[in-house]
């Protein structure tokens, strides 16, 4: 049996050589010419199908560690800056984002007008013909009028494409709806790359996934930008109970998880279930199906305001806001997780449920686990999680308190290499490492980045960044399920994802990524006669900020082959960015 255990490479080579004898196409022989890693044998007993973090990177410079965890990777000069100010001071600085000057970022975001629009303005400006038609038909096809259907009708209404927010007969909308979709995505990625408030952006990403909303679900297209602003960004480093309240009342969430159709008599369980399973207690939180149903009853009537009838058409002024419909609320007595909510509670029912959940030890455990997974390791140490949960409960859900417990722990300090960059971190850290700038006047991310399931927007080509994110499968707000993007290496490291990373590195280092500008990669001050070893060392330091195993360094020197022309240096940097070493953080 052993004889037959050919390595894959050997097997391929064998059959290829055979065909060469019989005049098969020449390309078949070409496979022979590719280099073979010496130890490439995929016998089933040897293939590691789970990622195990490297065990020898724990002593890496703490400045490098924090810049890879609290930030989306170091830019040139960042490591020195953090060393000088001290890691603890850096952590404190990042924990108070309001005190960090981010005016350059604000300037960059000015052109994204949708980010500061009110929901009325967005709803009025956003005209998607498909949604209009679908909504129109929906309303027309209704039979018997019930409370739920009236609510639905009212909210959906008739979004006339040419009506302004004030209901007058003004000019057609200025904003192209596809651009609106891109703006929130573009802004998010740009912030991750360029904002000085890096920890804040990491937390915004964390909570955006924890309280996931899929951008393309119906009205979420224009409601999610509001949610991003009013729910996530307002509370990312604040208090969990307040975050939960904002989320429960968020029109985007009410639409995404169907709670705006959750009414007395016929409850809709979707939000209630995910609130317990994904937002607070976790799936092992000990709640029952009955609890889910009682929570659903508690949130009946939590709905969204519909456009009013204006003089000349729908008035969007106060549309898309949270509204509690008392007449649709199931006001009976409820029993949730062992607590009795007396009859007649009205909107307080839902708020009491949020109180119970926000204070619950299972919630503390769950939130601490997820934060530790984000900041320390895919499988976070139980001791650390326990301390984080403790901090959560003692501080009444102060997110900063949990962060502090995690970031000042020994487990965190020794954890470099325990996490692998997900696509967004890979993209952002690459752009930051290369000192990329936004190319003026062009779109950083194109329409095709979000058009993956809509044939209509497939035509325009996005930049290399957008393509990479799409190939790797992590475009912000485009994860359909409520659980958000996964946060473990096993989910992201596969052949498709690696190839996308390599191609992005190649595009950026040769400045062929539309939307971003990368300056030529010649080492400053070095002349063309700099030795290949020195050049390699320079770029290893510059990109990785740490030493790598000597064999890897030798391979990179071998690549240069004595040639330090700009072309080769671009290739060298692309290789460093593509190497396993750059995938760890």
């Amino acid at each position, binding site marked *: 049996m052993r004889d037959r255990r050919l390595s894959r490479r050997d097997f391929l080579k*064998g059959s290829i*050589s055979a065909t060469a004898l019989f005049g098969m196409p020449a390309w078949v022989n070409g496979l022979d010419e590719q*280099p073979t890693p010496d130890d490439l044998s995929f016998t089933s007993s040897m293939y*590691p199908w789970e990622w195990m973090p490297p065990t020898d990177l724990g002593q890496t410079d703490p400045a490098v560690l924090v810049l890879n965890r609290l930030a989306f990777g170091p830019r040139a000069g960042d490591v020195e800056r953090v060393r000088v100010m001290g890691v603890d001071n850096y952590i404190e600085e990042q924990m108070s984002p309001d005190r960090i000057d981010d005016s350059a970022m604000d300037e960059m975001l000015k052109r994204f007008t949708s980010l500061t629009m009110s929901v009325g303005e967005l709803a009025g400006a956003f005209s998607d013909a498909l949604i209009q038609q679908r909504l129109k038909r929906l309303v027309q096809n209704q039979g018997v009028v019930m409370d739920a259907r009236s609510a639905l009708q009212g909210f959906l209404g008739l979004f006339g494409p040419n009506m302004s927010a004030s209901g007058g007969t003004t000019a057609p909308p200025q904003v192209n709806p596809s651009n609106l979709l891109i703006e929130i995505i573009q802004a998010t990625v740009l912030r991750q790359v360029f904002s000085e408030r890096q920890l804040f952006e990491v937390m915004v990403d964390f909570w955006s996934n924890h309280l996931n909303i899929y951008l393309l679900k119906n009205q979420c297209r224009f409601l999610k930008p509001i949610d991003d602003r009013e729910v996530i960004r307002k509370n990312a480093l604040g208090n969990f109970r307040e975050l939960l309240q904002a989320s429960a009342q968020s029109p985007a969430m009410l639409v995404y998880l169907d709670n705006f159709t959750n009414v007395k008599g016929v409850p809709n369980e*979707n939000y209630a279930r995910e609130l317990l399973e994904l937002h607070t207690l976790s799936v092992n939180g000990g709640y029952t199906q009955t609890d889910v149903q009682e929570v659903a009853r508690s949130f009946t009537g939590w709905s969204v305001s519909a456009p009013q009838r204006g003089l000349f058409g729908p008035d969007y002024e106060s549309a898309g806001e949270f509204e509690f419909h008392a007449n649709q609320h199931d006001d009976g007595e409820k029993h949730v997780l062992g607590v009795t909510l007396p009859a007649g509670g009205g909107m307080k029912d839902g708020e009491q449920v949020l109180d119970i959940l926000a204070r619950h030890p299972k919630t503390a455990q769950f939130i601490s686990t997820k934060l530790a997974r984000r900041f320390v390791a895919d499988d976070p140490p139980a001791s650390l999680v326990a301390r984080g949960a403790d901090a959560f409960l003692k501080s009444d859900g102060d997110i900063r308190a949990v962060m502090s417990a995690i970031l000042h722990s020994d487990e965190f300090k020794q954890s470099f290499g325990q996490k692998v960059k997900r696509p967004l971190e890979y993209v952002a850290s690459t752009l930051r490492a290369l000192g990329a700038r936004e190319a003026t006047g062009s779109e950083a991310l194109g329409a095709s980045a979000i058009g993956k399931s809509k044939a209509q927007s497939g035509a325009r080509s996005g930049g290399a960044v957008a393509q990479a994110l799409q190939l790797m499968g992590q475009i912000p707000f485009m994860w359909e399920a409520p659980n958000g993007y996964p946060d473990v290496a096993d989910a992201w490291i*596969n052949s*498709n994802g690696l190839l996308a990373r390599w191609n992005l590195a190649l595009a950026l280092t040769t400045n062929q990524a539309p939307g971003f500008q990368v300056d030529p990669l010649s080492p400053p001050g070095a002349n063309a006669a700099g030795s290949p070893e020195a050049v390699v060392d320079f770029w290893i330091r510059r990109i990785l900020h740490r030493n790598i195993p000597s064999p890897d360094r030798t*391979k990179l020197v071998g690549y240069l082959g004595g040639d330090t022309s700009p072309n080769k240096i671009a290739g060298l940097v692309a*290789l460093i960015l593509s*190497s396993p070493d750059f995938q760890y953080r």
Partner: protein
Amino acid sequence: MFDEIKRRDILKKSGVLALGMLAYPAWMPRIALRSNDAPPAGDILVAIFMRGGADGLNILVPHGDRNYYSLRDTIAISQPKSAQPDSAIDLDGFFGLHPALRPLKELFDQRVLAGVHAAGSPDPTHSHFDAMDYMERGTPGEKQMSTGWIGRHLQVKASDNKSPFRALGLGTIVQQSLRGPVPAIALQSIADYHLRGDSTELEKIQQTLASLYEGADFLQAEGQETLVAMQVLAKVAQSGYTPAKGAQYPQGYFGQALRTLAQLIKGEIGVEVAAVDIGGWDTHQQEDGESGQMPRLLTEFGQGLLAFYADLQDRMKDITLVSMSEFGRRAQENSSHGTDHGHGNVMFVMGGGVNGGKVYCNWPGLAADKLYGPGDLAVTTDFRDVLGEVVQKRLANSNLAAVFPNYSKFNFRGIVKAQTVRRIDLPRGEGLSLPA
């Protein structure tokens, strides 16, 4: 530089490496074929996961059950009538198909498609994520195994298939069901599967990448997989692809994934199992009608399966496709013309080896006292009975205890025919033997 001596030794030991000289068009690249005395290959498995909890009651409609209509006031699919375009397509007098699944009726009539109803997992969970996890791991109620059922099947099955394409996950993230010691390649598109940039440097860069990704851990191994896959797929992509006449794949990820898969199967590069997803089935509101999800999803699903069958034609006798979803949906509709999470559901099995044209089901009924939990269709066929039968009878693997641990009471319904043991027929005298 490669090791000539090692290769020759290995070839000497293994005897003859024969290549088939079957009549394929010249442009189809063939790289890895099995030797003459290989273990039985079994069918190619295509596992389709309908993500979100597909509403089986509206997909394979029990129009013969009166309770179906009283429970679904507005979203029930009406009984089969010749005049009505929106009514169920009758299959056997009791079950019918959603009208958007007309393509499947053809396959059903040709007896290559079977439906299984009231199928699913015994675990009561209504959580998408848990239910998917349990189903893909093949261990309901348990998350200890980090491997998937297909991963374990590949692990224990006697095989000499060393192709990197043995296991394929179509999409951006490799499906949990494929996780295991046999590496799976994640693939979205053949055309893009190569390094892009200035061609003179690319080769050297690719070589250096290969050396940087030497090593035995997961990240390195994935890198090696990627490089080999790139080389093979580059050649496949060069040839271009035209589906067989009559194969009209629908637009969208699902159709294109099946098309890609068909191309790779025909390319004979060693694909043995493939996982494909089709998402969007979580129809909590506005399930049907013009603005609903179901007609669109089912059109994509049905057209995809039909196109795949039409594209692969004769080869379908060596392919078994099976679809599943993590759970069905509540028997009674909710207040938003949709349905909440349920339990029992439909599975489809398609292929040349299927005893098709039939719905396999021990129908529990939809009367109030027959419903499960908060009002779901009960499960009377464990999903492992369906998958286990496929594994044993079509995939040449009788080690079901390894594939589905902690499950012993398999109850095969006769959905597929037992495969006769066969080897690849290689014309005598045209095989090749290499110099010893």
